[in-house]
């Protein structure tokens, strides 16, 4: 009997290891032969730990499973039975391109990776020139999935055209935004996709070295990525002679040290160099003067991990999905106070309301939805009246939102929006790198000003608005520059919570 149980850290945090122990112990008691394969997560976090039992080549799901379910799962009589996993509504409605293998394969089996389409993209890229590779990425319409949405192909072109004795591919895996976990799931569930994407990027721009800057808060992802790099090196996928092509590309996993601002690309580069993670002024662009002053591609995990499927299926296939200038798929992360949270990959263009109410099933608490913070701690709080907004870079921007890394945090009607606005300023104050004044000082003043509003000071709200303008216009990077988004969106959409106290004081 073949079983699969995720080793994704969300599944483990919900007790997947204990479920595996119980299954093995129960099978031992019965003298039954079972094989338990650890996989990534399918992304249905509300069903984790999700045990899959393979019957006639079809995987049947049981979840959320606890150790007490082991006997009934082995008998096939468990009340946690969900039927074939591929037929579940959540799975059928997705377009899984980047996440095609996550939850399906053993993350550290290169053989399974290849059997499920892995390395086809790299083999195709090896037959192309650097310019052809860059053109293919441009044609796909891929844009930076870390949040900025900058066209990946144009960034690669800059690095391709730059002269330099050494160029670098740096993967930004410093996924610090609350409500986002796509990078983590991808690295824990299909690490070779990221390695393959970085190798293709290296071939495209002429870089022979790569680094993944991975946050220390993700110990499981670090372990899986390190294991995958060793396997890839042994198999000749990395090294002096990539897949026997005579071309070199090798990479290393580097661990961050708990600084949120290092998710900003220039801070990340300073940190990778062993310096304080302070922001660099741009220009020069990292594409021209990046790691150690050399031309560097800095891309998010999901951007790089999407490159292999673009080369496997063709750029046009990828570009055929999406809406407007947002081509391909978006890996939505549905989180917070939500009944069905998890990862859902679909073409750009789905509405916010469909994601929260239909896919997510509303709040976990059963109370009405009050707001959704889209795009992490620097994204706006959107009220239910904006639920018709389409999830695309420009479309959400037009609705006053920010798609960012496509994380959505749902709040019910008990949420205190003044407290959330204050937290945004407090977080900015804690995490500011200190290089620019609007962020370093502004965030501290922001906390104080919000406390004055809470105490009923009528002069404080105009001051907060003015302060937010200054931070937006004057900060060097998105930390100080975008903290006003959650703050001012809370003020705009929930004015009563900022005014009521004032009236009480008057």
């Amino acid at each position, binding site marked *: 009997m073949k079983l699969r149980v995720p080793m994704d850290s969300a599944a483990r*945090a919900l007790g997947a290891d204990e479920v595996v122990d119980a299954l093995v112990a129960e099978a031992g008691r019965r003298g039954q032969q079972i094989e338990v394969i650890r996989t990534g997560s399918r992304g249905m976090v509300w069903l984790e730990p999700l045990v899959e039992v393979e019957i006639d080549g079809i995987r049947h799901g049981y979840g959320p499973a606890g150790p007490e379910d082991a006997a009934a799962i082995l008998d096939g009589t468990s009340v946690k039975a969900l039927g074939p996993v591929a037929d579940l509504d959540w799975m059928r409605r997705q377009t899984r391109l980047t996440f095609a293998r996550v939850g399906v394969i053993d993350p550290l089996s290169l053989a399974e990776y290849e059997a499920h389409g892995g390395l086809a993209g790299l083999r195709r890229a090896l037959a192309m020139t650097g310019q052809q590779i860059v053109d293919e990425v441009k044609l796909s319409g891929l844009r930076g999935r870390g949040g900025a949405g900058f066209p990946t192909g144009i960034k690669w072109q800059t690095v391709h055209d730059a002269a330099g004795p050494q160029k670098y591919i740096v993967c930004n895996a410093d996924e610090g*935004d609350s409500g986002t976990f796509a990078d983590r799931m991808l690295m824990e569930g299909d690490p070779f996709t990221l390695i393959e994407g970085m190798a293709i990027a290296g071939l495209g721009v002429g870089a022979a070295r790569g680094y993944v800057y991975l946050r220390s808060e993700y110990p499981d992802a670090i372990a899986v990525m390190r294991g995958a790099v060793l396997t890839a090196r042994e198999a000749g996928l990395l090294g002096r002679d990539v897949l026997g092509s005579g071309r070199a590309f090798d990479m290393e996993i580097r661990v961050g040290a708990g600084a949120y601002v290092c998710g900003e690309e220039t801070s990340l580069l300073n940190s990778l160099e*062993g310096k304080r993670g302070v922001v660099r002024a741009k220009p020069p662009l990292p594409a021209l003067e990046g*790691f*150690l002053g050399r031309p560097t591609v800095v891309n998010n995990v999901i951007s790089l991990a999407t490159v292999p499927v673009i080369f496997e299926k063709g750029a046009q296939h990828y570009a055929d999905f999406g809406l407007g200038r947002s081509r391909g798929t978006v890996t939505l992360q549905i989180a917070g106070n939500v009944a069905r949270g998890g990862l859902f990959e679909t073409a750009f263009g789905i509405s916010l309301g469909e994601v929260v109410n239909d896919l997510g099933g509303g709040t976990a608490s059963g109370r009405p939805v009050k707001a959704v*913070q889209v795009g992490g701690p620097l994204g706006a709080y959107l009220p239910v009246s904006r639920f018709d907004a389409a999830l695309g870079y420009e479309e959400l921007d037009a609705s006053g939102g920010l798609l960012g890394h496509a994380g959505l945090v749902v709040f019910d009607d008990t949420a205190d929006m003044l407290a959330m606005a204050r937290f945004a300023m407090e977080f900015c104050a804690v995490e500011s790198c200190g290089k620019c004044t609007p962020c370093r000082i502004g965030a501290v003043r922001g906390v104080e000003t919000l406390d004055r509003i809470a105490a009923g000071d009528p002069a404080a709200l105009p001051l907060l608005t003015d302060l937010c303008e200054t931070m937006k216009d004057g900060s060097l990077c998105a930390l100080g520059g975008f903290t006003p988004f959650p703050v001012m969106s809370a003020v705009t959409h929930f004015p009563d919570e900022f005014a009521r106290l004032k009236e009480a004081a008057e």
Partner: protein
Amino acid sequence: MRHVAPQPTVEDIETLIAPFLALEGPLLPILHALQEEYGHIPAQAHVPVAEALNISRAELHGVISFYHDFRDKPAGRHVLKLCRAEACQSVGGAELAAETLARLGLDWHGTTPDGALTVEPVYCLGLCACAPAAMLDNRVVARVDAAKLDRLLAEARA
């Protein structure tokens, strides 16, 4: 097991950091290795590290003090990190953290008097669809409630 009062010699430090010196940008890997070995960045390491990398002690201090992860003195035997970020707040994370700190009589970054446990804030563990989240040493726990927290605290203080 972390050393309670490590007194590394210059030779100990030099041996520990030698494998990293050929890396591009070796300082963060070195600091992680020191902290892994000693539970903090011992003051005795400052001069050998600065000399090996040809940077000033002030620069080194600047780097160590910039990052939340690096400590200049040992933590408790276990470190409990409680997530303070938005997704965890949406399901009562802030209240849970406040109760935990009150019960232990600690503020953030504080250590229990028996030296068993240090409690620190963390901003996101990537468990936002099964919040609130916590991490005891390197083990993550999701949908943390009072009962789960009791078990974690008992385990840490055993």
